[in-house]
């Protein structure tokens, strides 16, 4: 069978240059190459794989809960087990799946889309992955001991104080989130500096793909939001282990301080786990509609605006806690306002479909379903922005329905569509379209069957987080439907994984640009060479591969000539706004340090958890030694270098 796209890549890869670059950029042999890889594509795929593994774990937890809730007065789980399951389900999906899966995509795609060879800090990139994995393992090691977090994903005090939750469960939560927060922060800083500096010449900010805008916005938000939850966790850990009074009422502590700090983090985080996914839709949907995105500038600005307003709505999670009326009104109004930037993207997508020539591919089906599910989740969000309604609906299944529509609707459906869209780039092969339609059908039907009726359950007064309900309460048949839907949805996801596996094994060969996309990642072979671009292109427009057909009269992007950078492992950095060539960067090779640092943090956090000074000190000193080693000055002190070009 011939490849879907039989043409050679637009970006040239002359064999003599490829050999030089391969020698400089290729992975180290053996274990060092595996544990020490700093290739953003390897790290991106590891992120995706690990995030999907956590999705499966979190999904299985949900299925066990749905077995329990399928009928009234069930006794599959006792209350303690149920508490741990719903807490770990939330923690897993929100912290270990939703953001990491987007980081995986961004890691893989950014340098390809930006026309660069790697992220700004390749070793920190590896570090953020290993830390994510280590923190996930740290949280899950507690599971077999029955000591997993059991205070819900937002872990309110005083329920989670030592008085009402004496075991180690909540300490695992506190330390695990601080641990994971380091990974998020390191990753975010890397994305920001990569965006500012690691682009092809000419890739000015008005030419960036929207997914870059989305991830950049999320990353800036993470830098500002993550310390709030880390601090809250630190306070709580102090309260529980050292007898402080941050939240303990007896010594003048304030339980609501937890909620403030948690939601100052939590609400921006919600946008952090949807904006990059919305970016995927904004970039990939137009490809399947065979036209550029409608309203690029508006969508880019709306992305940033959503996050700015997103920092001013945290109190709407606390409407029922007795905060002053003035504050309630302000935050209620802000919560209404935030619908406006979100809606801009929705209208832009609809207009793109309307005015384009859509191909009904599997990615197209997923991306259009995002629009529908986002509107449903958005409308239930606007409903609960209203104080009067929120007081009735808070802590009911209506909220559960709302948050799953938003998170699964915008995150998981967008991600699944994005896998179908970018899988050919990552693997060089296509996923089967016919099986993909089954996957879509099952996931879409199962999802709506599972979560739409939850709205009614909430309106009928079923509280969230109850481990069972009586047969006389009128929730029974609806809950059975929800459980059936959940299993149908899970079956769809299973089929999705089979689809990936089959595609990898025997999918049709894709060629460089099977979807006929306009952005830079489609200008190189699939899968891309380890150094991405043999010749760094020079960018002149937002759609470098569509310039002919769009009739751009201005300058054309250059692929056949550009910067060469073939003296060792090096790449180009540009000025932050205009993308002018600024400096040559010598990039670090494969290294044990990121893996070692993540391992060293395990005894540090383990020591804190088990109150073992020796273990903690060991971890702390090991961390310090690795960090000093990391930043030690290298041998290379060349001040400048002659520019080498091709063409």
């Amino acid at each position, binding site marked *: 069978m011939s490849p879907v796209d039989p043409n050679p890549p637009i970006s*040239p890869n002359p064999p003599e240059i490829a050999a030089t670059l391969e020698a400089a950029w290729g992975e180290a042999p053996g274990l060092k190459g595996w544990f020490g890889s700093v290739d953003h594509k390897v790290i991106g795929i590891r992120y995706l794989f690990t995030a999907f593994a956590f999705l499966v774990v979190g999904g299985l937890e949900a299925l066990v809960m749905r077995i329990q809730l399928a009928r009234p007065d069930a006794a599959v789980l006792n209350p303690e087990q149920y508490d741990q399951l719903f807490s770990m389900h939330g923690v897993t999906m929100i912290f270990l799946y939703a953001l990491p899966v987007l980081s995986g995509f961004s890691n893989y795609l950014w340098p390809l889309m930006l026309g660069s060879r790697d992220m*700004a*800090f390749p070793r*920190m990139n590896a570090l953020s992955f290993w830390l994510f994995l280590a923190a996930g393992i740290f949280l899950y090691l507690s599971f077999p001991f029955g000591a997993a977090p059991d205070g819900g994903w937002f872990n309110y005090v005083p329920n989670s104080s030592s008085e009402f939750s004496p075991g180690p469960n909540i300490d695992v939560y506190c330390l695990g989130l601080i641990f994971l927060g380091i990974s998020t922060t390191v990753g*975010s*800083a*890397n994305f*920001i*500096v990569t965006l*500012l*500096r690691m682009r092809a010449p000419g890739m000015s900010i008005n030419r960036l793909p929207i997914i870059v805008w989305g991830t950049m916005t999320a990353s800036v938000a993470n*830098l*500002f939001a*993550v310390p709030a939850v*880390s*601090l809250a966790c*630190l*306070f709580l850990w*102090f*309260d529980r282990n*050292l*007898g*402080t*009074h*941050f939240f*303990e009422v007896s*010594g*003048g*502590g*304030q339980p*609501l*301080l937890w909620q*403030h*700090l948690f939601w*100052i983090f939590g609400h921006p985080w919600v946008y952090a786990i949807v904006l990059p996914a919305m970016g995927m839709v904004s970039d990939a949907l137009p490809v399947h509609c065979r036209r550029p995105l409608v309203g690029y500038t508006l969508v880019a600005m709306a992305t940033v605006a959503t996050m700015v307003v997103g920092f001013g709505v945290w109190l709407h999670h606390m409407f029922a806690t007795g905060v002053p009326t003035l504050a309630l009104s302000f935050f209620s109004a802000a919560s209404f306002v935030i619908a406006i930037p979100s809606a801009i993207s929705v209208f832009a997508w609809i207009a793109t479909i309307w005015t384009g020539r859509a191909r009904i591919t599997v990615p197209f089906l997923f991306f259009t379903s995002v629009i529908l599910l986002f509107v449903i989740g958005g409308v239930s969000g606007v409903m609960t922005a209203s104080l009067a309604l929120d007081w009735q609906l808070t802590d009911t299944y209506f909220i559960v329905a709302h948050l799953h529509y938003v998170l699964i609707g915008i995150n998981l459906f967008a991600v699944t569509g994005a896998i179908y869209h970018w899988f050919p780039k990552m693997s060089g092969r296509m996923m089967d379209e016919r099986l993909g339609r089954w996957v879509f059908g099952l996931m879409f039907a199962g999802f709506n069957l599972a979560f739409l009726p939850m709205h009614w359950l909430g309106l009928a007064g079923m509280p969230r987080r109850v481990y069972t309900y009586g047969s006389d309460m009128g929730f029974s048949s609806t809950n059975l439907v929800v459980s059936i839907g959940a299993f149908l949805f899970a079956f769809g996801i299973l089929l999705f994984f089979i689809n990936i596996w089959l595609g990898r094994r025997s999918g049709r060969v894709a060629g460089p640009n099977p979807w006929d996309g306009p952005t830079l990642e489609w200008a190189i072979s699939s899968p891309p060479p380890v150094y991405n671009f043999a010749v760094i292109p020079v960018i002149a427009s937002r759609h470098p591969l569509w310039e002919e057909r769009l009739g751009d009269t201005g300058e054309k992007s250059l692929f*056949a*000539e550009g910067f060469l950078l073939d003296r060792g492992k090096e790449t180009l*950095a540009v000025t932050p706004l205009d993308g002018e*060539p*600024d*400096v*040559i*960067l*010598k990039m670090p090779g494969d290294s044990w340090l990121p893996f070692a640092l993540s391992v060293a943090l395990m005894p540090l956090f383990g020591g804190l958890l088990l109150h073992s000074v020796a273990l903690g000190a060991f971890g702390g000193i090991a961390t*310090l030694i690795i960090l*000093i080693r990391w*930043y*030690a*000055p290298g041998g*290379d*002190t*060349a*001040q*400048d*270098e*002659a*520019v*080498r*070009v*091709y063409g």
Partner: protein
Amino acid sequence: MADAKTLDERLPVHGMGQIGTPWWGMLCLFATEGILFAYLIFSYAYLGSQGFQAWPPTGGPPSLSLAIPATVLLVGSSFVLEFAKRRARTGDIALARVALVIGILMGAGFIALGLKEWSDRPFSLSTDSYSSIYFVLTGTHLAHVALGLIALTVLLVWSMTGRIAPGHEQHRSLITLYWHFVDVVWLFVFATVYLAPRLA
């Protein structure tokens, strides 16, 4: 026929200051650390405004007798280290090392005064919400100073053993920049803990 060629133009390798990437990474660190202290100060204000009638609840505002010398030491050390950095850049390594040692000693003095102040307090970490936030706010800052001291000491060792070549100025610049940051943060912590209660 396309081929590879070398131009007469040159581009800097790695680059100093804003041209290199580490400077931008350091700025990200400042952003996230700065906001961490903002949340700490928010928590201080929240606990102070929601709980007790008087804040601090006992004994009035903390004494300035150690805090002011400590502040002078820390702010002074920033100037000394900036001097050291500029001397090193002009090649006067011996003077730079002397200034670096003086800067480290001033930083160590700040930590010593901070610990002395801690031990003089009539309350302990677990007394009440004020004592909790007092120790954690000043403690978080002290930890940052301690980390800076370790970095400066490592820098001194690298300098003495000849690991820092003229092409490695970035290391010295960034550690000094970090020290300035920790210094500025102290001014906010100082204003919160020592000055704000005097305004009430």
